[in-house]
């Protein structure tokens, strides 16, 4: 019982900052700046309406979601076979290659921002969703291979062998038998890929101007000449949390098993 209370205290403290943002998003600017109010006294949804009816605002969410899902698709597609190779075979240079992949997770985006800008400008991909998606593979592919390798090592090799004896071809075995076996692993990997791509700002902002601008970059617009539009800023912030909650909800059953990344 004591632990239940301690946990609830933690949750309350943790949720306070988010509550404060929601509280602000439901107030008018004059109320926000007027006096400190712990809940909205004149409840207003105007801040949300501003964002949801203006396509230069809500397209930011669409752009962000687009490159995040592109990135997830690319990362999983290339990482699945690679993780399988690392978990099942020894081959020339495997350990070095694995560490080299991991080094990309360690590469600070600040180091890569400028070269990325030049690279994607020169191949004509600047300000497209695919440019951001590809740039984010820098850290996400490494992570995906790392997590999936842990899960795949947990699947006994006898399963592969039995499938071959039963006459399965490799692609059929991989898609029909193997992928369903590591479902939890894929769910958790997807969660991490979404998370790191969704929250990243520096690369996404550097590689876009107007056509594929992420919501995080659009939010800076609220700082105008007449001061900061706090209400709209808060509402935009609240809306960035929503897709994340949806993702956690979808993978919640995999989390307990899967977050240990197969390495317990």
């Amino acid at each position: 019982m004591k632990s239940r209370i301690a946990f609830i205290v933690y949750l309350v403290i943790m949720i306070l900052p988010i509550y404060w943002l929601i509280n602000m998003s439901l107030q008018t600017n004059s109320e926000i700046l007027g006096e400190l109010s712990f809940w909205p006294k004149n409840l207003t949804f105007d801040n949300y309406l501003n964002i949801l009816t203006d396509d230069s605002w809500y397209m930011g969410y669409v752009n962000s979601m687009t490159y995040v899902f592109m990135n997830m698709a690319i990362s999983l597609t290339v990482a699945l076979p690679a993780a399988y190779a690392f978990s099942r075979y020894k081959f020339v240079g495997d350990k070095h290659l694995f560490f080299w992949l991991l080094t990309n997770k360690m590469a600070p985006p600040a180091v890569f921002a400028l070269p990325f800008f030049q690279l994607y400008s020169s191949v004509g991909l600047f300000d497209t969703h695919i440019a951001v998606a590809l740039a984010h593979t820098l850290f996400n592919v490494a992570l995906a291979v790392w997590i999936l390798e842990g899960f795949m090592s947990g699947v006994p090799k006898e399963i592969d062998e039995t499938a071959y004896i039963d006459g399965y071809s490799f692609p059929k075995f991989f898609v029909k038998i193997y992928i369903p076996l590591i479902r939890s692993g894929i769910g958790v990997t997807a969660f991490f890929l979404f998370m790191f791509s969704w929250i990243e700002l520096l690369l996404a902002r550097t590689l876009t101007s107007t056509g594929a601008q992420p919501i995080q970059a659009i939010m800076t617009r609220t700082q105008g000449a007449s001061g900061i539009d706090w209400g709209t800023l808060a509402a935009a912030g609240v809306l960035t949390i929503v897709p994340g909650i949806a993702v956690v909800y979808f993978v919640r059953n995999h989390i307990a098993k899967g977050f240990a990344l197969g390495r317990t």
Partner: protein
Amino acid sequence: MNKIENNKAWFFVIPVFVVVAFSAVIPLMTVVNYSVQDIFGANSAFWTGTEWYREMLRNPDLQAALLRQFAFSFAILAIEVPLGIGIALLMPKKGWAASAALVLVAMPLLIPLNVVGTIWQILARSDIGLLGWSLSSLGMDYNINANAADAWFTIILMDVWHWTPLIALLSYSGLRAIPDAYYQAARIDRASRWAVFRYIQLPKLTNVLVIGVLLRFMDSFMIYAEPFVLTGGGPGSSTTFLSQALTTMAVGQFDLGPAAAFSIIYFLIILAVSWVFYTAIMTLQKDKSAQQ
């Protein structure tokens, strides 16, 4: 598991290799190229060799930023790891409460970095923010834009708020993997709560914790958007960490050569520390499989 030796496995790795080569090797070579030259225009570049590197290593601003960076990374690890384990031990284990707790605990993780900065920037204001207002009305002279200690306190609090859930979720799933039989055996032996933690739970957590520490170290070492939004690196340069020092130099002052040399040094430092961690995990796992 005994792995089969087969070099055809390279075919599985080729897609990853191509994607990463495009998104990592080409840009990295560009940086290396800048770091050894002084570039004036399209066709005039001078070979400078290691000059920029020496200049950067002697630069007092960057040395200070590096020290701050280490102080920050170790401070947040020292707080987040024990706190995360503690929360994982408290989380409900079954039923709807467990699902609800998972979703709630994970929430801060999925907030974009600059929104995290914005949330705390608002909270820290003494006129409209809960934290700043509370501390001020308690009579404390709290101002993150004037007082370096307050700025540090707020940044560390922000990072703990944002990333402790990662350690908590990893530890939680590590704890779920312990069979009930272990706990029953401990009850028969009348093991104390501490003994259960020390000899049953903690050993099972080692693997997930190493992953958590590695991820947190790498990410905290690259922290950029949150302090940039919250304090802008100030007051003065008291919260300017490495990434911000680098972007200021590269974008603000257009000093491509020195900035590139700085990038390479920065990358090598992260690489060196992570390599130590990584080797430690690998030997740890080898010892374990040798025991079994």
